[in-house]
Structure formats: C-alpha cells, structure tokens
C-alpha cells in the first residue's frame, strides 16, 4: 500500500498527521506531507485508511498495490 497527498486539494487541516503520525507530517505552513516514499509499513495500513477517510478535502490517495 502507498499513500500520496494531492497538494492541489490539501488545505492543511492536519487530520492525517494527527491520526497517522508515522505516515504523515506537516510542512512549515501546516500542509500535510507524506513521510519518506509513502510506502505504508506493515501494521500501518489501518492508520493509513483512517487518515484518508478523515481528510476533509479528500486529498489523500491510497494505492493498494505498491
């Protein structure tokens, strides 16, 4: 599984880095960014799904195959 953030949609609500701090962080203006290459380590799949489902802007994309 791999996560990406669409910077065109992200408005910096920060739900992703609240809910899945292993996968997402904030930049200097509070916009979300993917940590590392976005490949979700084993055990973090659920956190990735919860983060994506809570993003108010629907900016997070989950690719199941990666």
């Amino acid at each position, binding site marked *: 599984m791999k996560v990406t953030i669409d910077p065109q949609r992200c*408005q910096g609500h*920060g739900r992703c880095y609240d809910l899945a701090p292993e996968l997402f962080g904030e930049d200097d*203006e*509070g916009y979300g960014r993917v940590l590392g290459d976005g490949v979700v380590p084993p055990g973090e799949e659920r956190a990735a799904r919860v983060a994506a*489902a809570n993003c108010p802007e*629907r900016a997070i994309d989950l690719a199941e195959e990666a």
Partner: protein
Amino acid sequence: MTVDDRFTREFRQEPPAGTRNEVIAGPVSDWASDFSHLEPEWAADPYPIQDDLRARCPIAHTDRFGGGWLPTRYEDIASIAYDTERFSSRSIIMSNYRPPAEIAPVGAVPPISSDPPFHHDARKLLLPAFTKKEVARREEATRAFCHSLIDSFEGAEVVDAARDYAQHIPMRVIADMLGFPPEDGPRFRRFVESALEGVNLPPEERLARMDELFDYLYAQIRNHVADPRDDLTTYLIDVELYGRKLEPAHVAGTIALLLIAGIDTTWSAIGASLWHLAKTPADRERLVAEPGLLPTALEEFLRAYAPVTMARLVKEDMHWRGVDMKADDWVLLSFPAANRDPGQFDRADEVIIDREINRHAAFGLGIHRCVGSHLARMELRVALEVWLERVPVFGLADPSAVTWAPGQVRGPRTLPVRIG
C-alpha cells in the same frame, strides 16, 4: 532607518459606501421562505430547523437581509465553499449591509474577507504562526491557565462553565499571541459581541462600535511600533507582501479578525462540549475513564456542535442547482448543517464519541480552511482534559437557564453546572 509612521495618523472609518437594506426582524413565518439565523428559535436549537429544510427545501430562501439563501445539504455547502469564482467572501457576516464590490479581493479583514488571488498571499503570512508545531509551544501555559480558572471555583457548588471557564481560555491565548495586556479580556468580549451579534443594530451604532474596536487596535499597534516585541502584532507590522510592508488597514483588519475569529469560536466549542458532557453522564464517565479517547470525542463535538457558520455573496445572476440566485444575494454557509447531513454521516443526528470516520467541516472547506484550527484543537483538548481531571463529576444545574449566542457563531453563553 526611517520612522514607521503608518499608524500615527488618527484613523477613522471612511463614511460607509456599499448598500444597506431595511432591517426585518421578528418571528419567522416559514423557514423555507423567510429564514433568519438571528431569531431566538434558531439560537436555541437550529438542528431540527435545518433537518426539516434539508428534507423539504434544501436551498431555502429569505427576503430578510436584502435577500439570501440557505443550503442545508453537505454537497451544496461544499460546492459553494470550493467555488470562489461564483461566490465571494467580500463579506462573510450575513447582515443588512453589503460592502461595495471594489472592496474585493482584499476585504475589510484579510484573509477571511479576501478572494483569490490576493487571498492566498494574505493567508500565507499567517500560516507559519499557526502550525501544529508552533501552537504546541503554547500548550503548557494554556494548561496552567485552565488550572488557575478551576482553582478559582474553590468552594462553589454551581459555576458558569461558559462565562467562568470556556470564555477566558481563548481570550488569554490570543492576547498572549498578539502581545496585548491580558487584563483587556473583557473589552475583547464586547468587540466580539458587536461584530457577530450586533448585526441588526442601527448602522450608526455598528459603526461607533467598530470605531471603538479600531481605536483600541491602533493604540496597541502604535505601542508595538514604539516597543517591538516577539509577538504576532510586531510580526504583522514588519512583515512584507509584494516587497513592501502591509497597509495599515490590512494590519489592523487582520488583528481584528484574529481577535474576533479566535475568541468566540473556541469559547463556543469548549462550552458546547461541556454542555454535552454535563447532560450525558455516560459520555462523561467514559471520557474520565478513557482520557485517550478525548481527541476522537473532540472531533465529534466539533461535528455535532460546529460553532461557525459563514456567508458568501453571489457574484452574478445565475441559475444554481434549481434556484435563481441574483448578484449580491447572500448565501448562509452552514457548516453545522453540512455536518448533520445523513447523506454524509451515519447516524448524523447522534453524538457518538468514538466515531472513527468523521470527515466533518467545522473548520470550513477549501481555501479558507480555518487558519486557527490547530490552535483551536489544542485549546479545546487542554480545556477538556483539565476540566475532566479536576471536575470529573458535574451536571446541568438548571437546563432552562442555558442560553445560546444568536448569529453565525453559536455556543452556550450561560451554562450553570453543579460541581459540588
């Protein structure tokens, strides 16, 4: 170095340009064709009204305020928030006054009153000071302040959780960030009430109150020009946009916005959460037993009791999703109604404190996403943590004595709770 004389002249508002309509107040005949968010029924409990409208007339209309619309479906509200081409933020408070079109794209209180492309640049100036990491630095002081408020309850059996607790927290935090004297809190309260609740007052009085706010702000700004400090006011005085420092009206307008947007909203969110817990012992007991659930519960309180409704002005005549909108019609953008749309949320009308999937819109959607959302979440979490730790058992002292603010920011203003 030249002296910064931008703020030295006596500053008064220009005589108001823009358009005004007659004030229509009094009981609503039919919410679908005559709605008003300023009537007591709405303040007391807007949700049944919104649910009824969503089912029978999802884009309601009113002739009050010179004409306006009230969408209640999540989809419609989201589309309007995203559509800055057709809906302007030139005024975001639905009232009897429309500022002139020339005020766009800056507006009186950037960035909330700004439209693209200016909006982005004005907003960018604020973002670094409001990231999660930056606001975390204020957590310890906020926690200590919450404890001191609870210390002052010593010996009381009944306290007002809105007036004696919730209200003070955002006032202190924003005063600290701006570098204003903490004892000026009560004055902020008056400014907030004038801007957000005084919408149907006569224009002369609104203007006089606005002058009072700006006189205060310019005095604080001059004080910071003479004596720069490490705070947001000094930052806004010095910061540059397009290679030059900001217009005085931009500096003062942004500070006014932070003061007004930062206080009422957060006070309402803390108050509504405590109100819910005071009347729902099962949720209160669960949160006392499982403090780790608080961040999840807090999102549910924000969804179910979203305090903030915004407004937009229609830019040009158009047919929009089945209704004929006219240029300069208001749209009341009810994030609270969006958050209770059963088309978007399961069991939308229930408060479920462990709701895991919660894509709520309490902080808005799109380019105007609340700049203060990380700060507000920190304040709300700390305020509830400290309260539940210190006052684990409490309940409504007199449910009929609870009062709610009318207008676009809704939360409890009187909230007597029994703590002893």
